[in-house]
């Protein structure tokens, strides 16, 4: 393993900012793995650290197959993580909305450019990503429908689901989208949580990455074959939203099997405790996403149900 600095930036008064990479093996640039890009992606950073730890052990046993190089970038934005911010410490811009970046542009465009120029050289790109809403997902692989996505490859992660979704205009500056456009097969791994470490789902995520590397014959690693992934899209999901605001008494978690008419949650009056509205499942299915904050506003997305 070689540890190197991919990007460095002086700060007026803070320590130098460095984006570090860990390279394993030599040969074809096979897989690049990117951990936290936002400062609150602690679960993603933890997963990446476990991938690095495992790859160090695998490499020590001679388990990196000849002719393959793997790059792991555990953190792109610890300057924000260290001060409890999600976005860039200075101007609050989102590095994950700056790709493919620009080396003569704003600070976060330069960071994005440096990372992208490294990662785009690889055949496969894996990002440990987070969702914009606070809550938990069933761990899954996510891809955007750019016309370049390969869902069969995504199934090699052995995650329960491969989610393909239609890109929106603001998605065109994401790492995943740009990797696909620039001919790197890109996969985003959603590992349950974001700002808290949930080890069971973290382990599913890091094992899925090692499984992918094993199935692509890049590393020597024995693990069970994982799930036979179901490929889903927005069409396979029903969104359940809060019909009032209040204290959320959530009776359901991601991965719960539910039936039409099941009581999923209650929203309570924050003064009197009386039930303001019951949230009832509109269909049979599996809870793919569950909102997990104690307070909720009207029209907040509470659940996403896979109905297939």
């Amino acid at each position, binding site marked *: 393993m070689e540890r190197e600095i991919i990007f460095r*930036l*002086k*700060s*007026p*008064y803070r320590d130098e900012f460095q984006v570090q990479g860990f390279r394993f093996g030599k040969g074809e640039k096979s897989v690049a793995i990117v951990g936290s890009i936002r400062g609150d992606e602690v679960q993603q950073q933890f997963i990446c650290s476990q991938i690095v730890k495992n790859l160090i052990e695998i490499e020590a046993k001679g388990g990196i197959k000849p002719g393959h190089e793997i790059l792991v970038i555990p953190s792109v934005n610890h300057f924000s993580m260290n001060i409890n911010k*999600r976005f860039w410490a*200075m*101007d*609050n811009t*989102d590095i994950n*909305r700056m790709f493919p970046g620009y080396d*003569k*542009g*704003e*600070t*976060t*465009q*330069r960071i994005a450019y440096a990372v992208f120029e490294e990662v785009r050289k690889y055949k496969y790109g894996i990002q440990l990503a987070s969702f*914009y*809403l606070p809550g938990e997902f069933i761990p899954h692989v996510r891809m955007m429908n750019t016309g370049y996505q390969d869902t069969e490859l995504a199934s090699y992660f052995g995650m329960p689901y491969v989610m393909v979704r239609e890109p*929106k*205009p*603001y998605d*065109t*500056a994401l790492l995943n989208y740009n990797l696909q456009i620039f001919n790197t097969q890109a996969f985003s791994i959603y590992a349950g949580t974001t700002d808290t470490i949930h080890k069971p789902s973290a382990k599913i995520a890091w094992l899925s990455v090692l499984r992918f590397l094993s199935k692509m014959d890049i590393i020597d690693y024995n693990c069970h074959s994982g799930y036979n992934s179901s490929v889903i899209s927005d069409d396979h999901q029903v*969104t359940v*939203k809060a019909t*009032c*605001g*209040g*204290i959320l008494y959530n009776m359901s978690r991601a991965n719960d099997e539910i039936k039409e008419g099941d009581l999923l949650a209650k929203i309570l009056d*924050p*003064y009197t405790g009386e039930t303001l509205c019951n949230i009832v499942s509109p269909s049979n299915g599996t809870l793919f996403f569950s909102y997990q904050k104690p*307070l*909720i*506003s*009207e*029209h*907040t*997305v509470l659940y996403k149900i896979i109905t297939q």
Partner: protein
Amino acid sequence: MIKTIISESLPVYEKLLVRKKIISGATGNKRVCIVTGTHGDELEGQYVCYELNRLLQENIDNLKGSVEIYPALNPLGVDSVKRGFPAFDLDMNRIFPGDSHGHLIEYMASRIMDDLVGADMVIDIHSSNIFLREMPQVRVNVDMAPVLVPYARLLNTDFIWVHDAATVLEATLAHSLNVLNTKTLVVEMGVGMRITREYGDRLVTGIFNLLSNLGMWDGEVPDSIVNPMLSTDGEVHFLNAEASGVIIPAVSHSMCVLKGDLLCQIVDPLQGTVLHNVVSPVDGVVFTLRSYPIVYEGSLIARIFSQKKE
């Protein structure tokens, strides 16, 4: 008349309210909408809304049709000094046209779109951010320029910037309205978290000029409307910091500079040294200038417009 276009329950006994003021003349069917406060730290539009509101009501006999004023599309952000929509991770001006079945903010965006579509003109007022001060300007997507530039010239600003069509900008309110044939002009002026009264007064005059041009205003409009510089008559130059440090300015905003003029120094107060002398690469006008002194490598320091020489 004040109309509430969005009323959504927050967790603890509060409604998220987006409201507009409708000011209608006795005759006329045209409708012009003034929107601002999408970014909660951009406050220059607040003065424009107030002043326009006041002047229209005092001179209502001169108005034909309706002017609708939306002072805060992001009321939680404006009232809590937050640029974004509190508790939400996306820039509110990157989620249009919204989604009536989506999350709260996407739903809001969809409702705002529904309310604005069909207006004869929408003016979306922004004021940069806390880092940069902008000369009064109208920004127009290059694809919309043939239609919008003639209207932009009426607004009494110094500059019209016709910019490239970036895909990510397709999610802005202005673009989303323009593609639905609701003409929308984006005004950028001043600096975040402040009100520059001079700029506000100029834009208010420009809006009355626009109303007059649309046949909606019978009152007087000063004949001192500025003929703005047009970006396609020259080139926009970006100056980004090449060192991280503290900026000591050497020029003022909106100044004309010559090639080689010192714009600012980036210094290291700990060492007492100059890290970088930032000089102008061209003769031109400084239409954007950094107002927040701390910079990292890459932070935007200035934008200079240089006109083509005859």
